């Protein structure tokens, strides 16, 4: 087992004894991240980009250094391709509304999948309704993988944009984005990847990923809430209209007209999440100091252990691929005759924190034939001990509900 247990000391919240298995919803924050933000706010804070005084310059430098750090972390050619947003949801809405409304015509096709998080589905529904474009969905195979055969069939000329999850937050499934991107580009479609789970748990290298846009959130990768990223290939960003108007994003404004600032500022209207950018920078430093490869390997090892031990729990049904190949550290489960909320409550009594519900993926729940699942998700601070507590709690639930 990749030994990362020594990192637990960096996460103050774990002192309470919680078995935190809900990192897919949001990760905990290590002390160095909290300290970086606090220090910055105490010594170098000011608004960015407009001050000629030194504090403002210090803040601007910190903010732009965070942008370069993100670019470096995801292998972006150019820091200007990194747009700071409020989170994955806003990043995806920016693409849907900024690119979609601008570029989609009636009858054009938007191709997505049945396993998307609402953040990568609802905006496209809204945009389809406004533009008259047609929304279509790629199904899953029996092993909860994206059905690449059907995807190939649906990737026809007329498909203008493909919106796909980089890693399912319910199943852990990691689709082959490079292959999907090749197919999409062959028909002239752009590809936007919801990488809310992929970036924190596997990392991405946009120079080989193949997609045109990548969206992710700081709060799921050890960073603060309130900030996220939209990366876009420069030529794709150039096709996009600003999603919001306001300060910082303009070149000139008259009473009736405005022209836009260069990319990325054009897409960052208003005061950005400055302190949060500093926190995200520190989070990336932390992740890199551990190593994304190690983190992914660690998640996978825990997943393998979990799948094995959970297979013995009476009445438990696991939802997701059978193996751990191309799969992140997420295990969704249901128990016969026992609702996911009841599982979560009972687990919580043993200090095991798992999420229960539809995980913002209601269409996927219907595909799986359930209304809710309990979901355990792993991150670098989890250990086998957490899995033991999970298994014990599930057994207790089975006893209470008389499952055998």
């Amino acid at each position, binding site marked *: 087992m990749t030994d990362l247990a020594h990192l637990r000391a960096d996460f103050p*919240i774990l002192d309470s004894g919680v078995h935190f298995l809900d990192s897919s919803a949001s990760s905990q924050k290590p002390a160095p991240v909290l300290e970086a933000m606090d220090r910055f706010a105490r010594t170098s804070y000011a608004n960015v980009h407009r001050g000629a005084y030194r504090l403002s310059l210090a803040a601007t430098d910190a903010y732009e250094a965070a942008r370069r750090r993100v670019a470096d972390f995801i292998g972006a050619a150019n820091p200007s391709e990194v747009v700071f947003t409020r989170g994955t949801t806003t990043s995806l809405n920016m693409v849907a509304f900024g690119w979609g409304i601008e570029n989609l015509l009636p009858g054009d096709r938007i191709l997505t999948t049945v396993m998307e998080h609402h953040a990568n589905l609802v905006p496209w529904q809204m945009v389809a309704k406004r533009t008259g474009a047609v929304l279509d969905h790629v199904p899953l195979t029996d092993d909860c993988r994206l059905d690449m055969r059907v995807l190939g069939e649906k990737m026809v000329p007329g498909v203008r944009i493909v919106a796909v999850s980089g890693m399912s937050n319910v199943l852990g499934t990691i689709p082959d984005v490079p292959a999907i991107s090749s197919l999409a580009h062959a028909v002239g479609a752009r590809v936007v990847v919801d990488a809310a789970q992929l970036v924190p748990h596997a990392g991405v290298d946009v120079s080989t990923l193949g997609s045109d846009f990548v969206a992710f959130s700081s709060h799921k990768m050890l960073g603060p809430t309130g900030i996220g990223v939209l990366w876009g290939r420069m030529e794709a960003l150039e096709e996009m209209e600003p999603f919001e108007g306001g300060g910082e994003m303009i070149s000139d404004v008259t009473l009736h007209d405005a022209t836009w600032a260069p990319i990325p500022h054009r897409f960052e209207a208003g005061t950005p999440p400055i302190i949060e950018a500093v926190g995200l920078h520190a989070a990336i430093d932390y992740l890199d100091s551990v190593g994304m490869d190690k983190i992914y390997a660690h998640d996978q090892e825990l997943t393998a252990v979990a799948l094995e031990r959970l297979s013995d729990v009476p009445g438990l049904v696991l939802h997701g691929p059978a193996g751990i190949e191309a799969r992140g550290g997420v295990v969704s489960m249901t128990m016969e005759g026992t609702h996911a909320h009841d599982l979560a*409550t009972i687990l919580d009594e043993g*200090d095991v924190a798992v999420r229960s519900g539809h995980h913002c993926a*209601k269409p996927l729940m219907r595909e799986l034939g359930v209304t809710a699942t309990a979901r355990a998700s792993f991150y670098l601070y989890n250990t086998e001990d957490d899995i033991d507590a999970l298994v014990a709690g599930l057994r207790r639930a089975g006893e*209470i509900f008389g499952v055998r």
Partner: protein
Amino acid sequence: MAAPHGTVTVVTMALEDLYREVILDHYRNPRNRGHLEHADATAQGVNPLCGDEVTIELELSDGVVTGVAVEGQGCSISQASASMMTEVVKGKTRAQIGDLVAKFRGMMSLEDGVDPELDPERPGSVLGDLEALQGVRQYPVRIKCASLPWNTLMEALSST
């Protein structure tokens, strides 16, 4: 085990107090499940934050509930609460149901202390089996589950 963490202090009690046998029984064998031939009032309630659903149909005659049916899905607490509710509302007037709802809400309220009248073991208790739901109060996040059928009931009644 189960030491409270976070800023909210939760008194941990035995799970057995939450999942009393009568609740599990109503969950497994829900009463008055299905549809009415001629519903006079109907309402659907959803808890958008957890996905629990309850649909209630009522037959009313002279302001008295003469029939009730429930459909829905969700956790043991919401579904048992719905089932138990159907048992106490039948034959009640609107005013009596208003009273019941107030009693029930009082029982769920975190502010009020435990009402000694609400003892499920006591014969002739006001809320019947429902009083077994008192344990829910210790699990604030589940109170919405228990309340869903009641809010939906009030909506159905106010729709007529």
